[in-house]
């Protein structure tokens, strides 16, 4: 069942007026099925994060339409779109963007601040989310008292606290070493195995290959979709003659 539909989306920035328009995305069409784990790859500046934030209901496209669960995301008012993000989406950022002055439990509870639940209920839910990523024992630690991998898992727990149907991740292993990055990817795989729909931006072909599909984007256009079996992905990418990826291979 199609859960996310990106229809003919383009994004044009005009930092200095019409004369200097920057076409970041051009006529993008993407579909995500419910329970699918899709990776988005592409070189720096290709528009990956822009597409992620457009699907993430916080970056209005210049043209086109984004439907999530048949909701026209950009047909909503700004405030309703904030409610939509709270209800439908979980974000995992590259820098994790944890609040340094809140402990792990409080960071996880952040998306619940507007919920009309008792503090006790919120704590129970937050602890459950921490349990899911294996951080229940470090609930009262501040982010700077956690390792990089733990911070990444904490960011995932925060994204999951509202049990959003769609998890969006922007290079979640980008700042981590290989070992720690693998831990994070394991968490993603486990979540996906439990039915979580995931859309992940990554530079790392091995991580990308852990998804069901890889969408390649280049110069603001989707150029190829690949089935996510490692050998085939690499073959396809090599076949696509993308120099930087060839080097990686």
């Amino acid at each position, binding site marked *: 069942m199609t859960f996310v539909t990106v229809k003919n989306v383009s994004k044009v920035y005009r930092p200095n007026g019409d004369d200097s328009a920057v076409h970041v995305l051009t006529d993008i069409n993407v579909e995500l099925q419910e329970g699918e784990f899709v990776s988005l790859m592409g070189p720096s500046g290709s528009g990956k994060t822009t597409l992620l934030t457009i699907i993430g209901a916080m*970056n209005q496209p210049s043209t086109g339409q984004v439907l999530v669960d048949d909701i026209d995301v950009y047909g909503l008012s700004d405030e309703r779109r904030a*409610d939509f993000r709270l209800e439908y989406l979980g974000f995992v950022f590259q820098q994790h*963007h944890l609040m340094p002055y809140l402990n792990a439990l409080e960071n996880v509870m952040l998306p619940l*601040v*507007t919920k009309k639940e008792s503090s006790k209920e*919120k704590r129970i839910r937050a602890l459950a989310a921490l349990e899911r990523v294996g951080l229940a024992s470090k609930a009262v630690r501040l982010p700077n008292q956690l390792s990089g991998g733990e911070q990444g898992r904490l960011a995932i727990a925060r994204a999951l606290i509202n049990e959003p149907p769609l998890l969006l991740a922007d290079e979640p292993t980008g700042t981590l070493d290989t070992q720690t990055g693998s831990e994070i990817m394991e968490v993603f795989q486990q979540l996906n195995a439990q039915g979580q729909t995931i859309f992940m931006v990554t530079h790392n072909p091995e991580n990308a290959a852990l998804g069901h599909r890889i969408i390649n984007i280049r110069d603001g256009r989707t150029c190829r979709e690949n089935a996510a079996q490692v050998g085939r992905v690499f073959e396809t990418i090599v076949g696509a003659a993308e120099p930087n990826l060839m080097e990686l291979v």
Partner: protein
Amino acid sequence: MRISSIAWANLKRRKGKAAFLIIGISIGIATVVALLTLSRVIKEEIGTQLDQYGANIIVVPQSNSLSLDYGGISVSGVSLDASQLKNEDAKRILEIPYRNRISVVAPKILGVADVEGHQALLAGVDFASELKLKRWWQLAGHKPEEEQDLLVGYDAATQLSLIEPTTDGSSQAVPVTDTSITVYADGGPHHNNTEQRGFRIIRDRLQVAGQEHRVAGVIAPTGGSEDRMIFGSLAHFQSLLDKPDQLSMIEVSALCIGCPVEDIVKQISTQLPNAKVSALQQSVRARAETVDRLTRFAVAVSAVVLVIGALMIFTTMMGSVVERTKEIGVLRAIGLRKTQIIKELMIEVAAISTIGGLVGWAAGMLLSWLILPYFSQSGVRLELDPKIAFGAVFVALLIGALSTLYPAIRASRLDPAEAVRYV
């Protein structure tokens, strides 16, 4: 965890900045509280001093013709057929709603009588209230004690040969308000002679309307109509002038710092429908003008201080918003509404303002207490008025909210995608 939890956590995290803002607001509020408190105290003192200059409301009978003049005020004559004021009317004045603003009610009966061959203006008064009202009087002799004791104006005493000038220009006259050092013409606790400032009493018996009276004291020259008058007790003069229970006029002194004199006049008029009640406008206007100038000065300086305080909060909060762009972007990205971002910043500034307001109020009161002796000679008491404390907190909150509104709106409009991506 609620939005307020984020605000508190932020305050705890940025203790230095919060302390800086609290100190800034406190200084502003302390200055305003001190200025307004001192202004109020000075106003009260001026008001008290002005009230010592006498009555500011005059009550006379309704009348078509007037025959006597007293203190620049014409009063009904002896034989007019106007409706008369009664002793009871003086008491009824103290039943008006604003009775707590009235400090003195001084009823009078006026009339003309033969005094040792001269026609003299007699004024029957209640000495207790009259001497309280005429605080500028200075008496040679003592206060009347008996029913037939008199106080005689300087001109009348001269004409009736009750006094004679002294050679060294001194008299024993002392202010009537200073009861603890009352001086007696024939010797007293602090003086053993009568030779002071210009005159002394040489005769203390006087025939008024054929009856002998004792001259208790002579009023030192005032330059007013009382110099030509003879004052006796109200009941006795009512009897002597054959006007039992009647009053010619009632002088009223209202304590009047910003008090509604016109309202008091209306209330007395309602209470005494047969009387003509009027405020001495000159006195009232002079008081109002003095009070207004002080208030305007205090308000102007306060406004400047508060504007400076508001600019300080504005600058700090703008800096705070810039500093927290990423954090605000994350909050927006995870689904907080614009209004919730504004609310979070407003809670922070409200907490800071409340503490700043309370600290400022306390500091302002302390400051007032310390510098009050340099401004007030009469030792006006400083009161811990809870209304000022509430006012201080309210003003601090208002200034805090107004100065944070724009930074908060700006924060709420941050593009979450940009804020998260580039900072």
